[in-house]
């Protein structure tokens, strides 16, 4: 049995909308989502009453003690349909990690199976008042009893352990990671909707920043924001009648299963071993390999993920990503650099959870990137960790 995705290049992205990314939006998240979804539907040349499928990934990714309320801190597919006054044939939420690739897979499968003809896929991100990850817990039951009593808690320490393992094993310097941050923020600064619009970061600023959980500093983490993106998907056949050039979904992969570990314990070897299996399945699903990809948008919600994806995608040898970036390997302004953060990523946009990677693939492959337009034919949009996330391959052409 072939591992090629049975509906490869049969479903396409045909339109999008993106809200402005802010620390705290003036409008409630639900209102922002309704506005963004309506604009995406119009962008695709459709009417709201033609939308018969709604898909999202509703996770509110905080370690803090914040309430989860539909329409306020998250927006489910059914909330959006209800409030658009649509009775869809299909509404679903992806519950795993690697939310955008997972949600894309759900939407593509629904269209390929005939469960829906036109799907709105949205992602609504919320920044609650107070500390995003702070948690005043005084007791730890369940899985957290194995880690919280000794102070191992929250995503910064989670990413600090495998990053330090990488730094110690391969001799990676802070100067190398500065190159990642400079690249992400320079590209984010060019995007009118980005939280970091007009605000690039210099290597000196990065290097001067104090540690929070060594070797992680504030700039290594995407900033929590209020922001919404929506995409419209339909079949390749229906896409041919719509105003924008379609961008086809060639294949996808969601990582699984990760080695069982303590909560938030992501050893480097787990990330690399399980991650290589994720990307092997990704290439098999899409029917292409790393050498054919000219727009590999890696995930960067925490900066070390850039190294982990570069290596697991096979874009540079294991242990070499830090040298690769230091040598200009990801400089998207240079003809020799790979455009892996040309869309600004999460570090250059704000915590939009895989949206910047997907949006850059869409804009570039649809020829809608304006002044930033580059020549690209095959894109990859990654999210989260290679061993606990996912990725989608997009193509400008059916093959």
């Amino acid at each position, binding site marked *: 049995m072939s591992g090629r995705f049975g509906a490869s290049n049969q479903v396409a992205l045909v339109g999008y909308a993106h809200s402005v990314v802010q620390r705290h939006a003036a409008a409630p998240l639900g209102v922002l989502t309704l506005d963004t979804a309506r604009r995406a539907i119009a962008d695709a040349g459709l009417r709201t009453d033609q939308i018969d499928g709604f898909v999202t990934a509703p996770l509110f990714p905080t370690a803090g003690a914040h309430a989860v309320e539909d329409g306020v801190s998250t927006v489910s597919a059914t909330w959006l349909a209800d409030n658009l006054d649509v009775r869809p044939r299909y509404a679903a939420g992806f519950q795993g990690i690697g939310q955008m690739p997972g949600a894309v897979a759900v939407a593509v499968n629904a269209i390929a199976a005939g469960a829906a003809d036109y799907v709105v896929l949205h992602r609504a991100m919320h920044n609650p008042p107070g500390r995003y990850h*702070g948690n005043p817990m005084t007791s730890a039951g*369940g899985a957290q009893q194995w880690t919280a009593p000794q*102070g191992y808690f929250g995503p910064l320490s989670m990413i600090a352990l495998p990053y330090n393992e990488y730094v110690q094993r391969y001799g990676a310097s802070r100067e190398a990671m500065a190159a990642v941050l400079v690249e992400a923020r320079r590209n984010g600064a060019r995007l009118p909707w980005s939280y970091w619009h007009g605000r690039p970061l210099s290597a000196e600023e990065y290097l001067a920043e104090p540690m929070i959980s060594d070797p992680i500093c504030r700039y290594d983490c995407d900033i929590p924001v209020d922001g919404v993106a929506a995409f419209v998907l339909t079949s390749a056949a229906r896409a041919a009648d719509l105003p924008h050039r379609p961008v086809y979904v060639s294949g996808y992969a969601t990582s699984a299963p990760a080695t069982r570990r303590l909560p938030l314990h992501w050893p480097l070897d787990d990330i690399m071993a399980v991650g290589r299996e994720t990307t092997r399945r990704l290439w098999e699903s899409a029917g292409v390999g790393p050498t054919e990809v000219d727009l590999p948008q890696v995930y960067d919600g925490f900066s070390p993920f850039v190294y982990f994806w570069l290596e697991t995608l096979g874009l540079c040898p294991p242990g070499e990503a830090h040298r690769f970036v230091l040598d200009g390997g990801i400089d998207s302004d240079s003809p020799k650099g790979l455009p892996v953060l040309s869309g600004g990523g999460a570090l250059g946009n704000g915590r939009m959870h895989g949206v910047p990677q997907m949006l850059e693939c869409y804009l570039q492959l649809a020829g809608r990137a304006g002044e930033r337009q580059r020549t690209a034919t095959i894109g990859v949009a990654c999210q989260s960790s290679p061993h606990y996330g996912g990725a989608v391959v997009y193509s400008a052409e059916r093959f």
Partner: protein
Amino acid sequence: MSTPRPLPVPDEVSAPYWAAAAQHTLVIARCSRCASFVLPPGQTCPHCHSVDPRFRFEPVSGTGTVRSWTVVRQAFLPGFDAEVPFVLVDVELTEQSELRMIGRLLDGPAAALRLGDRVSVAFEDVAPGVSIPAFTLGAPA
């Protein structure tokens, strides 16, 4: 008033672990089917995939090697606000390959660390009858 450190809530499976820790003994769950050590013990054994692993807690040496570490300078649990900066070590226990545990390194943030450094278990008495496994550099005292 400052928030206290979070205390573990023992459950049916973990109760022997915390009872032993209170006596300053590190015990690790072991699968009755394949004899593998498992941390944390769940519903199944991740090694032999038994759905009836009947985990038994057995004392271990408490020695291991440092696979990674981080210095926590900002606590996301307010109960640790008074403790920062502190070091967390990712330790591979001697008993089994890839048997990994995370604990505080009690030598303090100035301790020079390298991958592969030897550590030994130590215990922090955080409340009456509650002790939390941690580590110190070097061989057991």
